[in-house]
């Protein structure tokens, strides 16, 4: 052993195992950092000069970096010392082709095909050569062999697709890239190069999808036509029945929401009117001594229908402004909002009404046939509430200042409607005028039914019902006419 080889042996003390050492240049290869890879292979080659890979991969890195002269040196050495390595001749042929030494390449490839007919590289380089020769049939045949040699290797399949790309057979290329994707979903070329082919075919949407598939995975676009979770098509509030359903749902849900906010929850629905009654009873019954017999019953029969009216009107007066977001975002018709508010107020009054009936009964005003008149009275009041509440709600978005007048107006109306006093207490000549106020008239009807045990005046009732119904119809037309106006006003 000459001292020089001994030095080399000694210098190897503490070397990492070869697989570990090779990881370092391989890393650079994977990052396509070719000149860095070439220098790393050079370093590793110092430690493992007997390993064919350090020479051959070093040559590959140099070729990719365009440093053909260095690659030539390494491959010449490899052909001398590693003739039996399967990569030696294919890589040599590749270099020769890059250097345009076609005869040399031809010889190398012949050698490779004889020695390593089961090695994919052999056939891939052969296909490259044949393609240069313009022998398409041969090219395809060689590439097919390469694909058969090692179906787990992506390069032959990529070569197959690239062949079609170079031949500008775009749809053929698209099919071949699809095969690349199905076998090697992680190979980016399967998406990006395929997208290029799709663009050549003037199919930009497909091209875009291919690139998105690379980012999000191939399963983002199912092969079957895209089915959203549901095939429902929004009807966009076009017809009345869904609108009625929406109004009902929204009103009941609003009530549910309101109830969840308070500790006493549903209790307030009854408690609130009772507290009002206590206030009026203390003021008018006890302090002013204006109360006649059975003042609580008198007060309740007026107060409860009044509160229904008052809550419905005041609740819906600003409702269109409150629905601004929904009107602008989902194009909900504006009439929905006052209707929701007044339905909400109405539903809240129902239990109180039942209590009222019970209370009156307990007080000794027994029910009779005349109680049937409650049905038209309630109906007329409903129509009247819709007419007034929707009219107020319709005007306020145009003149927002009016919303300040609503509470004042309602208070005035309460005082002139005989909520807590009997209309017969005012002078006789004014009673006729007084009863022209529909709320006053309705309260009179309730009291006649409950307390006086008689039928109310049905003719004026019918007129009020008819008038309110007409206004409701006009409102429907009006809201429909204004359906493009409200969004404008709400945006300004």
């Amino acid at each position, binding site marked *: 052993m000459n001292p020089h080889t001994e030095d080399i042996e000694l210098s190897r003390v503490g070397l990492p195992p070869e697989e570990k050492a090779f990881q370092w240049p391989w890393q650079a290869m994977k990052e396509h950092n070719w000149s860095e890879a070439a220098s790393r292979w050079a370093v590793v080659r110092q430690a493992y000069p007997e390993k064919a890979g350090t020479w051959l991969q070093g040559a590959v890195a140099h070729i990719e970096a365009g440093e053909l002269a260095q690659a030539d040196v390494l491959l010449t050495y490899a052909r001398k010392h590693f003739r039996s390595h399967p990569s030696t001749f294919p890589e040599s042929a590749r270099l020769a082709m890059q250097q345009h030494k076609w005869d040399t390449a031809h010889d190398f490839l012949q050698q490779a095909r004889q020695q390593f007919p089961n090695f994919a590289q052999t056939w891939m380089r052969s296909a490259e050569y044949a393609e240069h020769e313009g022998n398409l049939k041969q090219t395809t045949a060689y590439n097919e062999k390469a694909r058969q040699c090692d179906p787990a290797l992506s390069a032959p399949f990529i070569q197959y697709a690239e062949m079609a790309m170079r031949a500008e057979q775009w749809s053929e290329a698209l099919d071949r890239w699809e095969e690349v994707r199905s076998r090697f979903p992680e190979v980016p070329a399967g998406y990006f190069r395929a997208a290029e082919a799709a663009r050549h075919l003037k199919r930009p949407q497909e091209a*875009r999808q291919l690139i*998105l598939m690379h980012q*999000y995975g191939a399963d983002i676009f*199912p092969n079957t036509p*895209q089915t959203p979770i549901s095939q*429902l098509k*929004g009807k966009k509030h076009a017809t009345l029945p869904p609108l009625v359903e929406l109004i009902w749902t*929204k009103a009941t849900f609003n009530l*549910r929401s309101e109830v969840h906010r308070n500790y006493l929850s549903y209790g307030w629905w009854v408690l609130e009117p009772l507290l009002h009654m206590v206030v009026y009873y203390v003021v008018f019954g006890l302090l002013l001594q204006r109360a006649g017999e059975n003042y609580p019953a008198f007060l309740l029969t007026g107060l409860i229908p009044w509160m229904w009216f008052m809550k419905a009107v005041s609740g819906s007066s600003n409702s269109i402004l409150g629905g601004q977001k929904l009107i602008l975002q989902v194009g909900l018709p504006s009439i929905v909002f006052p209707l929701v508010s007044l339905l909400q107020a109405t539903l809240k009054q129902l239990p109180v009404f039942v209590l009222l009936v019970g209370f009156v009964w307990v007080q000794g005003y027994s029910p009779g046939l005349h109680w049937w008149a409650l049905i038209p009275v309630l109906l007329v009041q409903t129509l009247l509430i819709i007419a007034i509440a929707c009219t107020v709600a319709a005007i306020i978005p145009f003149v927002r200042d009016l919303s300040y007048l609503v509470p004042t107006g309602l208070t005035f109306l309460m005082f002139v409607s005989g909520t807590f006093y009997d209309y017969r207490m005012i002078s006789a000549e004014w009673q006729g005028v007084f009863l022209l106020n529909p709320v006053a008239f309705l309260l009179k009807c309730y009291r006649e039914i409950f307390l006086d045990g008689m039928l109310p005046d049905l003719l004026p009732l019918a007129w009020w019902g008819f008038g309110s119904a007409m206004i409701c119809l006009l409102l429907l037309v009006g809201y429909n006419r204004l359906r493009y106006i409200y969004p404008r006003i709400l945006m300004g």
Partner: protein
Amino acid sequence: MKPIISLQNVGVRYKRQGNVFRPANYFDALKSINLDIYPGETLGILGRNGAGKSTLLRVISGIIQPDKGKFLNRGASVSLLVLQAGFDPNLNGRDNAILSGMLQGYSRQEVEAQLNEILDYSELGEFFFEPVRTYSTGMLSRLGFSITTITSPDVLLVDEVLSVGDKHFKEKAERTMIAKIQSQQTVVLVSHSHQQIARLCDRAVLIDEGVSFATGDPHEMLSLYEQRLEMSA
């Protein structure tokens, strides 16, 4: 192919409400918009803040009518993708889902039939039955997005592709959105992310100061847009 929605020289003028001290004045949000939307395409709308993009979406969705020009919808249902439409913090997730779905034009029965899918998609579990005021922001947007997955109008308007929830849900939502946008559905997409327009759209239209001044390939429109931004900068 015939466009399903056409806008010709469309203009929209707002009235700015006045008061005792200041008279009302007018503001042209859109001056002249020319635009065709073809079935199945994804159209991107590019424009800086205040260029009139939101107003344009309102015209396309049929919520407002233009003051001048022609707007033509050949029978397509159009809706804006709205997250958390009409949410009430005191209601639970389920009730909000029903309400929100109904507000977007479905019957209660239709929405109720989809509730399990909404629940699964949202990954809210038992929280679905708790008031949404107890939700974290992420949970809220998860619920909001899940409800929109059931909607499928002919033309979907998307104002900014949504990024919602935590990382995992964000990816899931993004996948769903992209699948939806790339499907046969017609989509109009407004986004500040140029990359997103380039990635997702077939065509793009440039809007500036209420005028649509160019329509075409998204990549070309993007470079044009950038030139214009530089010019005015």
